[in-house]
């Protein structure tokens, strides 16, 4: 099967699911339901694409197919920020506190953290694995810190944090959504300048330098782009980077190519398919009694065990 055929199949599947999500079980109040569903589906498409895209790029610059950008600790930082706000001001304040302010603070802090991490470590050491290791330690540190505060606070307040702990597309703020799209769009535009280097980067650092890629500069820019995309997506819908590992690997398996133009587009489509299908199951079958993270982690886990078993037999 040719790559273009595979991409068409994925596109048809994605569009089909989107339409199914929008128009099935519409009921009589469609003028109320439809706009809400449209908002949800837009949020899914945007964040799903951003996660898929940044995971593929991240795996290429680290030359490793089992890492996700969450390893640098952005997810845990997000939870820490949320926990810290509630710990200091209480949950009533969170609901009082303007969502826009919360969004701004979180995005800025997360991007700042990624940049600092990059600046202090990568600049000096010139080794991306060192950066990942430190990121991992920071991530663990942030989660422990959040957990510590979560244990101390009132159980009712903890409920509020728990909401933030799972990704959800049910309450996406429209204004923030547009801001996010703008930020992600800018990051993507900037990325186009570096798109041609990805195939070469997947051959490894030495080969990339040999072929004339200004490795440090290119990797730094890509890293910043990833940090922006991940931060915005996480703040918009909650920690959702887990999805990246699954969709990137499904895309590699399905498309079997090294060309990033195809891979990135494919991974985005797989991501949209997974999220829309997951959301359909959550809403229509489980009637909101579970979250989409649970569904996708379950399916992803099963798929991974399948991959492992198949590999070990071969």
């Amino acid at each position, binding site marked *: 099967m040719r790559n273009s055929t595979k991409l068409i199949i994925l596109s048809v599947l994605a569009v089909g699911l989107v339409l199914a999500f929008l128009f099935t079980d519409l009921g009589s109040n469609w003028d109320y339901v439809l706009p809400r569903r449209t908002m949800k589906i837009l949020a899914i498409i945007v964040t799903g694409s951003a996660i898929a895209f940044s995971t593929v790029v991240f795996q290429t610059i680290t*030359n*490793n*197919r089992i890492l996700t950008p969450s390893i640098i600790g952005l997810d845990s930082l997000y939870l820490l920020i949320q926990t810290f706000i509630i710990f200091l001001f209480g949950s009533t304040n969170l609901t009082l506190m303007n969502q826009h302010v919360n969004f701004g603070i979180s995005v800025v802090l997360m991007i700042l953290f990624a940049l600092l991490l990059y600046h202090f470590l990568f600049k000096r050491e010139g080794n991306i694995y060192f950066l990942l290791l430190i990121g991992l330690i920071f991530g663990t540190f942030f989660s422990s810190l959040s957990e510590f505060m979560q244990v101390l606070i009132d159980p009712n307040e903890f409920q509020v944090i728990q909401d933030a702990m799972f990704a959800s597309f049910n309450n996406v703020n429209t204004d923030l959504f547009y801001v996010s799209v703008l930020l992600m769009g800018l990051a993507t535009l900037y990325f186009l300048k570096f798109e*041609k280097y990805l*195939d*070469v980067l*997947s*051959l*490894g650092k*030495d*080969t990339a*330098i*040999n*072929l*004339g*890629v*200004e490795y440090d500069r290119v990797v730094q820019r890509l890293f910043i782009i990833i940090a922006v995309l991940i931060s915005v997506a996480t703040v918009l819908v909650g920690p959702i980077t887990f999805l990246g590992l699954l969709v990137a690997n499904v895309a590699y398996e399905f498309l*079997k190519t*090294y060309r990033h133009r195809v891979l990135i587009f494919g991974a985005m489509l797989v991501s949209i398919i997974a999220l829309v299908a997951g959301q359909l199951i959550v809403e229509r079958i489980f009637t909101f009694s579970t979250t989409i993270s649970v569904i996708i982690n379950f399916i992803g886990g099963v798929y991974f065990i399948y991959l492992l078993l198949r590999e070990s037999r071969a």
Partner: protein
Amino acid sequence: MIKIKNLSKKYNEKTVVNNVSVNIKKGKITSFIGPNGAGKSTLLSAVSRLIKHDIGEIMIDKKEIKSWKSNELSKKVAILKQSNNLNVRLTVRELVSFGRFPYSQGNLSEHDWEKVDEALSFMELHDIEDQYLDELSGGQRQRAFIAMVIAQDTEYILLDEPLNNLDMKHSVQIMKVLRRLVDELGKTVILVIHDINFASFYSDYVVALKNGKIVRQGPTNEIIEQGSLKEIYDMDIPIKQIDKCRVCVYFA
């Protein structure tokens, strides 16, 4: 010409290359020899800007390596490292086509594909060009990587232990190819090599390093002689003349 002047490189506190000066002649094969840890690979990596040197300068065609634009330099100097593990699955032809990246930035023109074909025929890889690299033997893989470097069409070709893990037949094959690159296409080849007999047989110049310093350098027959080798390897190595070739009998 590549001129290396007073070059030093430290890893933390350990000096790996210490005040090295070498001139590398155009259109010749120059071999770097010396014991493990002598700094040969580090020197080669510095010349190909894979690592940054601390002190000294490397002039490539009269221009310091740091003032070269990376993309321009990749049309001038190509390096092949000793371990080439790929995370992606590529066919031989796809790999070789990557050698055109400095010129094409990923969009290969008619001319680029011609160069890829030339490189494939030069390495006699046409029959296996559509096979995946992970299905090939070590010798075939190494030939594919060399073909990529040839497609890059640079004046200088740097190779870090190109014979690593190859049997005699494939080693000879690779060395003959390097000789042809120099004699037929006028390239300049610089390689790090451990087997001094291959160095003796195929290279024009030899640079011997030990503990980060140059012990000897000069035309091959001046270096492959008992006194020099004793100094380089701390071993008494008898040398036999067989026809026109000097063979080092280092086994005992």
